[in-house]
């Protein structure tokens, strides 16, 4: 196994590798317990064009980075995905959480799959496709996963625009008995 880097070194290694394609990076430190041990969360925003290389670079730091899940939300003009990785688990107090944000324009909301690097990413990629209406290029199983097949096409539950589910939701007091 390669040497474990400090959070500052991790951020630096990404910045050296991808330069301006890393839009911002910040290190958050939280404390817990009476011994005040530190929890380290790194937040980074990367350009879509280098995203896959960022994941490849991450895999040079830790052979099998753990992908917890991908979050995502609609910001109006864009869709942002947040990939929650963690590395250096297995040694007490050493794990570092890495949250990588990628911005996708709504006019072309596509991103490359990472299932060839991390096979465990499949379900979360499928979920993002159906919930946010993005397209994952090269996804091995292009099917719905959480939403049933009879759910209308072109409605994306997590969108906040006209493709969102608002018109499908009704308040109980408005329903005529």
């Amino acid at each position, binding site marked *: 196994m390669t040497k474990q880097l400090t959070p500052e070194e991790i951020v630096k290694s990404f910045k050296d590798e991808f330069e301006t394609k890393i839009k911002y990076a910040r290190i958050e430190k939280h404390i817990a317990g009476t011994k005040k041990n530190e929890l380290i969360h790194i937040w980074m925003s990367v350009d879509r064009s280098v995203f896959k290389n960022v994941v490849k670079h991450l895999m040079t730091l830790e052979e099998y980075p753990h992908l*917890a899940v991908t979050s995502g939300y609609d910001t109006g003009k864009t869709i942002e995905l947040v990939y929650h990785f963690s590395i250096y688990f297995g040694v007490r107090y050493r794990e570092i959480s890495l949250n990588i944000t990628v911005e996708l324009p709504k006019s072309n909301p596509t991103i490359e799959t990472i299932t060839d690097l991390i096979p465990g990413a499949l379900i979360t990629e499928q979920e993002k496709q159906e919930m946010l209406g993005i397209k994952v290029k090269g996804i091995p199983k292009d099917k719905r996963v959480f939403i049933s097949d009879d759910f209308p096409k072109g409605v994306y539950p997590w969108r906040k625009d006209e493709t969102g589910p608002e018109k499908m939701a009704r308040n109980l007091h408005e329903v005529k008995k």
Partner: protein
Amino acid sequence: MIPEATTKTTYQLPIGPIHPALKEPVAFEFEIDGERIVDVNVSLGQVHRSVEWAGMRRNPIQILYLAERICGICSYCHPMAFALAVERVAGIEVPERADYLRVIQAELERICSHILWAGVAAHEIGFDSVLFLTWQMREKALDLTEYLTGNRVTKAITMIGGVRRDITKDMVPKVTETLNYFKDNFEKLRHIFLDDKTFKMRSQGVGILTKEDALRLCACGPTTRASGVKKDVRLDQPYFAFGDLDFDYVTPDVLTGEVNGDVYDRIIVRLLEVKQSIGLIEQCLDKMPAGDIVSEPKIPKLLATLKKAKGEGIGRMEAPRGEVFHYVKLDENEYPYSWKVRAPTYNNIMPWIPMLRGEQIADIPIVAASTDPCMSCTNRVAVVDNGKKYVLDKEELHRLSVEKTRRLMA
């Protein structure tokens, strides 16, 4: 008999969407050759309840109670992971005593969940007397939960910035009494699960998940630890007061000296974790400092603070089944801008595929149950054989599993 060239040698066996061995409805499509599973396909999402969508229309305090209803067994982990995420966004510091109280509740939930799982696993292979024994023990854990929180299932103990109820001095004897009861009965449980011939026959060498697969498929919790991966958020990135306590990763080699990644190893990990949890609660009772149990007891004031908060945060917790992960984004509004919930089973679905490949139909219940997916009951299995469809109900599949146990014992 030599099959004719035109005969298809494999057939399809769909299991689910709802099935006794699966808590969350999941549909499996098995490719079967005789008794052996050739391939598995998993599809999810039969009861998506739009909890996240509903959460974006509620304030953070209301979400605590919504999050509690995501899962009946992890009814403490979900709101707590959400609270952790919100505290990190809003910069709320949790009092030290609350950190300890949070550990006690988390470990009690783990004991409850693992003992419940042990019973279900015994039931799956037709060992129902063990089911009754374990659930009798679980009853004690539920009684203690009720004593400490006022509720048996949805505990309503979480508050952003702390917990809602203290454990006072006069409550400690009852906690110690229950813990002693577990310690007295633990040996019995260990003997049944780890030394019994029937259990060994049905669980050793079955449903193997290799270390590499566990890592590549991002498995979590006891499922991944049983494959020898040291991954436990309590130790990796200690939250609450876990950083102060003395404990270590539980992998099967602690007991047997080797890692096989089979069902037996997953039983070992869970059993040892029950023992570990008892120890952790005892340590907490010893070390717990005096002080406040919540940073801001006035709810309207807390809500006003949260309304001004802006940013994003994550809350990670080691639930009984693995890591619970919550992501929250606040934008100076009454309701959160975004909320993502990731339950441990979400990541433990993919590992089912390598686990089940090559096993027998009768092993499906115990292998599927061995990752401890959220369990509930009822439903049926439809077997499609040469286009003719007939239905295997819950009892039938259970009977197949019991028969296999009998066959092995004979």
